[in-house]
């Protein structure tokens, strides 16, 4: 009897959540550096980042051939290495750093700063709404699952 593959069941939504949270970080960095001379505003190429996250997710689908495999792969998954003092979580995660692009400035200022605070605020708000929409999708998936399990 096939077990439920939770990764496949949740689809692309968890990956989307990761990309949204990394994009929130980039936009927050832009806003924090709104007055830094020479700072170049950046953003994530969302389509490429999510496409990469989706393909990574497929490649990392665990395949279980025997009962022993399950314990082995769960020990590897989400490993935490604290070798060089900084903790990195490697849970088949999405790395969006190669998808960082510089923003094309609408009105560059004389000090070389290309952050447009209003535009960044707008992008941040949009990112937030999309993050919340993804959370709602996930919430619905979980409540479907609960309904199926409880059966009433």
């Amino acid at each position, binding site marked *: 009897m096939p077990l439920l593959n939770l990764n496949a069941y949740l689809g692309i939504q968890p990956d989307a*959540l*990761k990309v949204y*949270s*990394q994009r*929130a*970080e*980039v*936009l*927050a*960095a*832009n*806003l*924090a*550096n*709104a*007055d*830094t*001379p020479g*700072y170049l505003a*950046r953003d*994530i190429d969302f389509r490429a980042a999510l496409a990469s996250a989706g393909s990574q997710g497929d490649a990392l689908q665990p395949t279980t051939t025997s009962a022993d495999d399950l314990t082995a792969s769960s020990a590897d998954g989400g490993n935490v290495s604290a070798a*060089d*003092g*900084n903790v990195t979580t490697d849970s088949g995660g999405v790395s*969006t*750093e*190669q998808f*960082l692009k*510089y923003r094309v400035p609408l009105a560059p200022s004389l000090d070389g700063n290309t952050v447009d*605070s209003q535009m*960044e*605020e707008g992008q*941040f*708000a949009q990112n*937030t709404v999309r*993050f*919340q929409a993804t*959370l709602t999708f*996930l*919430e619905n998936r*979980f*409540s479907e699952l*609960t309904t199926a399990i409880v059966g009433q």
Partner: protein
Amino acid sequence: MALFDVFNIAGSGMSAESVRLNTVASNLANADSVSSSPATAYKARYPVFQAIQSSLMSPGAGADPTQTADAAVQVRGIVESTAAGTATYQPGNPLADANGYVYSSNVNVVEQMADMISASRSYQNDAQVLETSKSLMLDTLKLAQG
């Protein structure tokens, strides 16, 4: 998780903007200060902001600075304005020099007010980002809890 870094980044922005507000307050408070020589007159102070990549400061990190997402901001230092102050003839002033002149600060009050509004707006932006990220994280924590 990337949203945790938002707290550090927005926090660094708020910290830098509050330093900027401090210099504005100091400049405005000393706008009318006088001195007995041009060298000792109060000079307007400005913070110099600089982006920092926290991942570059961790040991063994050879990351390309353009390829790291986290760019917090720090105050690199405080510079003093080199604009000329004004000399006023006030022979009755106890601080007046031998020729009867006192030397006032080179603070431009209008410029300082504009700087104050800009710093305050940037601070509000950072605070808003912090607030939004906090509610997103709380929403994520409450996922599938009914």
